[in-house]
């Protein structure tokens, strides 16, 4: 294998050998998991053979490998693009065929789907065109001139991005503020935007811990859960309003952060990761089993919705002694008011998170975080107390998680331990890392990509998480440091921002 990679031209027999090797691998990987389905019958498990899936899996692997060989040898970009597109179609056909099919001899389902109607034909053509274009322009071995060209381009983009960060941020904020006016009547659009916003806020909160302080936290969802449950319990047991509970939820989450962080923050990277993961699981197990307090797996339902800053209610039937939002504003009642209000609420919370982070970065504590991330030993020798510094990052990150949790509880009106699984932690961490650690705008971008797109493709239901996982791998392979990966200290000595940008672009 290694010799094949080293030589510039591979002989025909070597290519055949390589293809055969991958065909065998594909056969062995798919022969049972894909090729045989276990079917539940009253008499026990039975087998259903799906040989067509195995054939397609082998076919797409061989075609894909051939495309890689063509690319490696630099034979023809057109052939490379055609082969990759063909492989993509095969994979697609395979996943379509997962669905119940009685006839294993059935002709390709993709053809039916693609040419069934005009609209599906357009969608298919667009899909093919995108895959084709990506395949055509993806080059592994670049000539020196092309490398030069592309680095020049990317450094130009970098300079443009860095010197305009503020403007980009401002445009983003304005877009999110006017968003409800653009899609005011579209319920699902507002819901989706609110969901994305929750993840942006969580991402920004975790960014303090992971991006700035460099502490790998795999259990961030624990603080989110603490915030959500503290609001739900306080509001149900003590009848406190959302506006009183919001800061309390933050305080509770932060204290949990301190209690957890105090013993474990001395640990290094991966150990910290696994302990935080364990802590996240502990919280979830406790939530499931402490039936008297949390309602166990049933969760807590009919959680109180927030009022308009205690001035007015959003419900149609306004309780005695208070007034409706519509009456207060002198407009007709609409169920959208609450949704839009919730959207603005989470937007405000997220912006507060962002603002606080940006300011903290410039304070001594923020600089200590970044210094600690780069070199702990140097920090210690300079008199920074690592434990306290890490603890503060942990607590502040946890606090924002708690705020987001309280918001989540009040928005859903129902919470259960199922919302706080490890998968959530992984998604939030993925948003931070994919955004480019420490980059605030990157988090927004990653949240839109990771949460927004999959939600739009709800029809794909069961394939959604599959594509999500594959996408995570693909983005990491494509840009290991994240989508916007320009991590540098917030403040440098004796250097204006412009000089710094110009200096690094060279």
């Amino acid at each position, binding site marked *: 294998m290694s010799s094949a990679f080293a030589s510039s031209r591979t002989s025909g027999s070597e290519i055949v050998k390589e293809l055969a090797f991958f065909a065998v691998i594909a056969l062995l990987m798919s022969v049972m998991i894909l090729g045989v389905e276990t079917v539940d019958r009253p008499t026990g498990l039975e087998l259903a053979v799906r040989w067509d899936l195995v054939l397609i899996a082998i076919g797409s692997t061989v075609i894909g490998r051939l495309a890689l060989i063509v690319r490696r040898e630099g034979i023809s970009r057109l052939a490379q693009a055609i082969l990759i597109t063909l492989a993509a179609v095969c994979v697609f056909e395979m996943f379509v065929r997962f669905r119940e099919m009685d006839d294993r001899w059935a002709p390709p389902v993709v053809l039916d789907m693609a040419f069934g109607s005009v609209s599906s034909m357009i969608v298919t053509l667009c899909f093919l065109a995108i895959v084709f274009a990506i395949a055509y322009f993806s080059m592994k071995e670049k000539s020196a001139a092309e490398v030069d060209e592309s680095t020049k381009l990317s450094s130009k983009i970098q300079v443009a991005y860095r010197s305009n960060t503020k403007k980009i941020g401002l445009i983003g904020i304005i877009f999110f503020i006017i968003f409800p006016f653009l899609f005011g009547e579209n319920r699902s659009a507002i819901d989706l935007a609110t969901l994305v916003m929750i993840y942006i806020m969580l991402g920004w909160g975790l960014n303090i811990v992971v991006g700035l302080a460099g502490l790998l936290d795999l259990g961030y969802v624990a603080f989110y859960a603490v915030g959500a449950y503290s609001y739900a319990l306080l509001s149900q047991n003590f009848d406190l309003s959302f506006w009183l509970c919001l800061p309390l939820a933050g305080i509770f989450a932060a204290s949990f952060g301190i209690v957890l962080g105090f013993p474990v923050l001395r640990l290094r990277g991966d150990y910290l990761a696994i302990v935080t993961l364990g802590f996240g699981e502990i919280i979830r197990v406790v939530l499931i089993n402490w039936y008297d307090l949390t309602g166990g797996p049933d969760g807590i339902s009919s959680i109180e919705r927030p009022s308009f800053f205690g001035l007015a209610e959003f419900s149609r039937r306004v309780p005695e002694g208070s007034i409706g939002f519509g009456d207060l504003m002198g407009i007709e009642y609409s169920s959208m008011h609450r949704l839009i209000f919730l959207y603005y609420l989470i937007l405000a919370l997220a912006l507060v998170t962002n603002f606080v982070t940006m300011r903290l970065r410039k304070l001594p504590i923020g600089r200590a975080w970044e210094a600690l991330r780069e070199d702990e030993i140097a920090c210690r020798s300079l008199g920074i107390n690592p434990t306290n510094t890490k603890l503060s990052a942990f607590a502040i990150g946890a606090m924002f998680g708690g705020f987001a949790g309280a918001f989540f509880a009040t928005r859903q009106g129902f919470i259960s331990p199922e919302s706080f699984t490890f998968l959530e932690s992984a998604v939030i961490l993925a948003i931070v890392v*994919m955004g480019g650690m420490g980059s605030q705008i990157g988090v927004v971008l990653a949240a839109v990509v990771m949460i927004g797109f999959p939600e739009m493709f709800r029809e794909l239901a069961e394939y959604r998480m599959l594509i999500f996982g594959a996408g995570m791998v693909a983005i*990491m392979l494509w840009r290991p440091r994240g989508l916007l990966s320009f991590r540098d200290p917030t403040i440098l000595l004796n250097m204006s921002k412009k000089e710094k940008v110009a200096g690094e672009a060279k």
Partner: protein
Amino acid sequence: MDWAYFLQQLINGLTLGAIYGLIAIGYTMVYGIIGMINFAHGEIYMIGAFHSLITFLICQAAGISGILPLTLLLMLFVSMILTSIYGWGVERVAYRPLRGSFRLAALISAIGMSIFLQNFVQISQGARVKPMQPLIEGGITLMRSPNFDVQLSYMQIIIILLTFVLMVVFSTLIAKTSLGRAQRACEQDRTMAGLLGVNVDRTISTTFVMGAALASVAGMMVTLYYGVIDFYIGFLAGVKAFTAAVLGGIGSLPGAMLGGLLIGLIEAFWSGYLTIEYKDVATFGILVLVLIFRPWGLLGKPEVEKV
């Protein structure tokens, strides 16, 4: 104190611990050699369980399930071979391109791979729990007490024996063969090992293959022991096995086994004497305590921080 009850919990704990230990070896070897948490390893174990279940069903359909030893051997070897190819493939696709890159990138890639594999099996095999009839029944009654008989089932004997044999084989493999020597060399210094003629890529691939093979054995044992599997069993087992690896001292093979046994025992005794609901809390609680007082694990070596 009821000794019979104690003994029974001990047996159950050791059985469970052997299974965790086998999975933990995969974590510890990979961590030792490339310093990353192979998050998809729990999923590999789950795929191993599915492979052995399907092999059994094929044997049943072919009518040879009556010959028990043959069926068991087929399950063992088919599952080991097919699952280790998954281990190889995961490394090739998701980790190798990221080697030497940013550390968190590999972790995120691993988490993505784990989500992918889990959903892949869910789609292709269905989300329902897969039941399987017990193949090996019966056992030895070790002790009779007034209210309780201590049972050591044949299945438990097989699990503990097989684990022991595999441990001996793999320890010898690492200690005596040239492959093991290459692995240990890569663990110490990959660049230097490469310069001295060790094929680093191949060694790392082999590590993944070995880890996956052991995990698939664990998967087969769980299929036979509990008789139910589903696509989601990989996550919790994976996390616990990683905990075991850390507990024993990550990078150390006997440590992983010891950690696995301890985790199994803690779980069994906790659910036997205290509450069954909070057994996971106990596991993680112990992990936190160990990490605070002995961060390098029970059998690991303390890491010297260099400037």
